[in-house]
């Protein structure tokens, strides 16, 4: 279906979610469940899903937030909408000079993906997936 150009121009509707996280989030836990017949092996993808959902209440997160606000240069901030502030904060903005909350989070994802004994980082969702895997 053709997009009607938006007069505002800020938001394009794409036909599909882009990016693995959005696809996973859209599909993985949705849809009508016919109980005993869901047979998904989440091997390999499990940690990625989980760590897209980094837990908020942890010392790690607090330290990342603290670092992020400490690195804010408030003097430089001449009001909202500075183009250079917005730029580089687009998705995958890891190239940003300062190490922000986002890049910190990405590191956590990498750590969790490479390690496999990170039990305290897993929310309830994983346990649910696992029981399906066992069934």
């Amino acid at each position, binding site marked *: *279906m053709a997009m*009607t150009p*938006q*007069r505002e121009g*800020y*938001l394009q*509707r*794409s*036909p*599909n979610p*882009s990016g*693995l996280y*959005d*696809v*996973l*989030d*859209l*599909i*993985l*836990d*949705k*849809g*009508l469940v*016919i109980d005993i*017949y*869901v*047979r*998904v092996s989440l091997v*390999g*993808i499990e940690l990625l899903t989980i760590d*897209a*959902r*980094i*837990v*908020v209440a942890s010392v790690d*997160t*607090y*330290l*990342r*937030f*603290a*670092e*992020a*606000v*400490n690195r*804010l240069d408030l003097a430089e*901030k001449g009001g*909202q*909408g500075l183009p250079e*502030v*917005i730029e580089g*904060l687009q*998705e995958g903005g890891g190239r940003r000079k300062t190490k922000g*909350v*986002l890049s910190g*989070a990405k590191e956590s994802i990498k750590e969790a993906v490479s390690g496999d004994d990170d039990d305290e980082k897993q*929310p*309830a*969702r994983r346990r649910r997936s696992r029981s399906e*895997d066992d069934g």
Partner: protein
Amino acid sequence: MSDNVPAPPDAELYVYGVIRTTDAQPVRAPGVGIGSPVRVVQSTTLCAVTSDVERGYVHASREDLQRHMRVLQDVAAFATVVPLKFGTVMPDEEAVIRELLQARRSDLERLLAALDGRVELSLRATYEEIVLSEVVEQDAEVASLRERVRGRDEASTYYERIRLGELVAAAMVAKRRQDTADVLAKLQPLAEDVRLGDVSHERSVLSAAFLVRRERLEEFDSAAAQVAAEQEARIKFRYAGPLPPYSFVGSEDEGPWGS
């Protein structure tokens, strides 16, 4: 649908969703797993959209997720569809007919009726880092703690920095609630239904699915664009659809903020 590729000897049926028999049309997209052609299994007025897969588990690989999504998207272009959960595999046609189409007939009919003429739209939003500046400006304790720990070595300010981060995290939670409420106030009136997904990523604002009548699609687009324009400096939106109604056929066990 087409059946010129022989099923593997050990085949089972992957089930994508259920449509009305009167809506059935061929689907060209290849199936999950071994890429078998998509075909329907019929029981009177209902059809299951299926394809052969090898016995065993379906791997949640990127490719299979995409194929599941593509088949349902093709089907949704010509039919009202009740999507099944990713990875639903039944042993044979007999099981599909008996345990899905017959056993769940009344649920399926009710869902199909509720979903007629409606599409899912997905709206996701994440904060730009500038929102942290708002927190510093609006919260005196955050501002003073920040001044106190800035430039000092990490070891001696460890607990102060945890306290600072905790305050910032709490402020972000409050912002998230407020911003979610603001977005919903503008968009929910245009939708038949809405579901909010988990937002445990620290930069997430919301992950929302809206069930919208096809004829209101453009109206919804403008309203969403308006919201995005108003929030341009602080929030980045991702908007997708029309999608099959993945989020509107399951149980409502997930609250607005997860569990």
